[in-house]
């Protein structure tokens, strides 16, 4: 078996790498320093068609697949995780739920702009008191006589929810209770600017400074009946069903991070002189970089194998969890190694590896923590974990 990406993927990789090197990398340090969400660059990514990669052409998409999306995400993450997560979340959390669970009307209304990268959407699941345990959602919505949904509650850490391009946020809310007595959770689309929908100030994050993250507050926020996404009470189940794609996409980010660290270290270890020779002449340094190459290679294989399963329509839940777990932990290690190779300058904010080090940690947290991935994998092994 050979395992290589096809010509489409390689052609896309070439273009996105060129774009990342020319349009993203030169500005990444400044965006990070100033906490700038780079609207023009994100729009340019829209013009490139990156937000439409996996969606059908009838909604303005590119008719590609998860593998191709992963290639684009990987190449962006190689130089800047913030821009990569903007794409990953824009597609996986923003457009995908509407594509998967929307009616024809809902798709026609919201998808073309999201898929074209002209607008962005967020997905609000996490709450101050419900993260890994998303079933503990406290946000509530009730229907009034005219059918409108009125939402009350809070969401935490929501990506892409407050940019000037953001057109809507899809939120999970308890809309009743199931016969078993458990809360019935639904998903509802809330357009930006709806009265009673307040986007709180940006968080002061440890990394991902150029990615947009806000707390959201809903106070008697009313949206029309037709904004209910998917069947009433199916919100949680629906959400679970699209998690796996997001996990593979986050793994692709991790691959890009490791690759970026590897390339930075290869260059630096040849240039930096200590004790009269390039630091790469020391086995301690060279071997650390060799290990980065191993991590990049292994991470790439688990990620694209999971993506290939998804694209072939085969089950890949455990593979997605394995990919996310392995690659994100490898990425965090890789950024620590790279920072060490760079010595003191690796600790300076403007150095790409320092930024990668701060940025990478959240890869082990978002879209399911490492512990949650281990839970999923354990269950796939038939272990009786709860």
């Amino acid at each position, binding site marked *: 078996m050979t395992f290589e990406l096809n010509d489409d993927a390689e052609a896309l990789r070439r273009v996105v790498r060129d774009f990342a090197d020319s349009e993203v990398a030169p500005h990444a340090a400044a965006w990070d320093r100033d906490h700038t969400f780079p609207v023009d660059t994100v729009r340019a990514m829209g013009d490139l068609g990156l937000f*439409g990669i996996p969606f059908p*052409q009838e909604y303005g998409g590119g008719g590609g697949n998860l593998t*191709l999306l992963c290639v684009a995400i990987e190449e962006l993450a190689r130089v800047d995780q913030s821009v990569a997560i903007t794409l990953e979340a824009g597609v996986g959390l923003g457009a995908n739920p509407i594509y998967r669970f929307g009616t024809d009307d809902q798709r026609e209304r919201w998808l073309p702009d999201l898929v074209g990268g002209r607008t962005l959407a967020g997905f609000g699941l996490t709450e101050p008191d419900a993260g890994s345990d998303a079933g503990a959602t406290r946000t509530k919505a009730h229907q009034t006589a005219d059918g409108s949904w009125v939402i009350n509650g809070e969401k935490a850490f929501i990506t892409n929810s407050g940019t000037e391009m953001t057109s809507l946020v899809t939120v999970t809310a308890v809309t009743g209770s199931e016969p078993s007595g458990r809360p019935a959770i639904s998903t509802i689309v809330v357009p930006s600017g709806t009265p009673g929908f307040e986007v709180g100030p940006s968080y002061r994050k440890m990394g991902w400074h150029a990615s947009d993250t806000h707390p959201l507050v809903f106070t008697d926020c009313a949206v029309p009946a037709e904004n209910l996404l998917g069947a009433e009470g199916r919100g949680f189940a629906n959400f679970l069903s699209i998690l796996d794609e997001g996990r593979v996409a986050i793994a692709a980010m991790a691959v890009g991070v490791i690759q970026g660290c590897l390339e930075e270290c290869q260059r630096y270890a040849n240039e930096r002189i200590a004790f009269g020779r390039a630091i790469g002449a020391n086995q301690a340094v060279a071997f650390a970089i060799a290990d980065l190459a191993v991590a990049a290679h292994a991470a790439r294989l688990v990620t694209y194998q999971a993506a290939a399963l998804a694209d072939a329509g085969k089950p890949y839940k455990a593979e997605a969890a394995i990919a996310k777990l392995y690659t994100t932990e490898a990425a965090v290690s890789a950024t620590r190694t790279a920072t060490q190779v760079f010595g003191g300058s690796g600790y300076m904010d403007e150095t790409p590896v320092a930024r990668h080090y701060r940025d990478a940690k959240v890869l082990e947290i978002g879209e399911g923590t490492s512990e949650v991935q281990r839970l999923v994998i354990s269950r796939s092994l038939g272990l009786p974990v709860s």
Partner: protein
Amino acid sequence: MNIVVCAKQIPDPAEPGALDPQTKTLKRDGKLILDESDMYGVEMALQLAEAAGGGEVTLVSMAPDNKVDGLRSGLAMGAAKAVLVSDPALAGTDALGTAKVLAAAIGKVDGAQLVLTATESSDGYTGTVPEQIAAILGMPSITFAKSIEVRDGTVYVKRQTDAGYDEVECPLPCVVSVTAGVVEPRYPSFKGIMAAKSKPLDQLTLADTGVDAGSVGWGGGGQEIVGIEDAPAREAGEIFEDDGSGVDKIVAYLENLKIV
């Protein structure tokens, strides 16, 4: 207006190049990409076709081993179709032979009124092919274009010079070579990449072009590369300590070289 763009496919400059000790030429057996110099021509052609309210942009290339990846990049940017000439008999062809082959291929493109090339390629950079194509096709040639407009069958070119630029106009059809400043090439979009796969790509052999086999290939150029050597390392410069007479020493040195 139908436009032909010469699109050279070259080994990726980002990867270390290698010379073939046998033929003493650049190895071209790996993946070939679209020469960045030609992306300007492709972009200019797309913009001119659009400004003219329509017309097709056709890419023409000569490359070994039926390589098409570089042409696909140009098609992904928006060119309508491509013609590739590839033939084992072309191995070793020099610049004039290349121009003969490209001119013959261009002649097969219906209604081509404007031929765009880069000023020079990034790998061979003899900078002679465009004028040779023009001569063979019997068309006027304008070089070093930093801007191009077409109105009523006439092309208006600002031609880069050391001092500034010349304004040149010329009736169509003609051959214009463009500089890197002419336009900013677009990034191919994802849809463009996907669409490129199904665009027409004609593959011609040497016989299809009608070019005499004796005028191309290793024999055709009438030249032989007898040896290749590394350029001699630059020698260290002379350092004058400035003990008060530094200026005099430098002037004396330059006088000695007959520079001042």
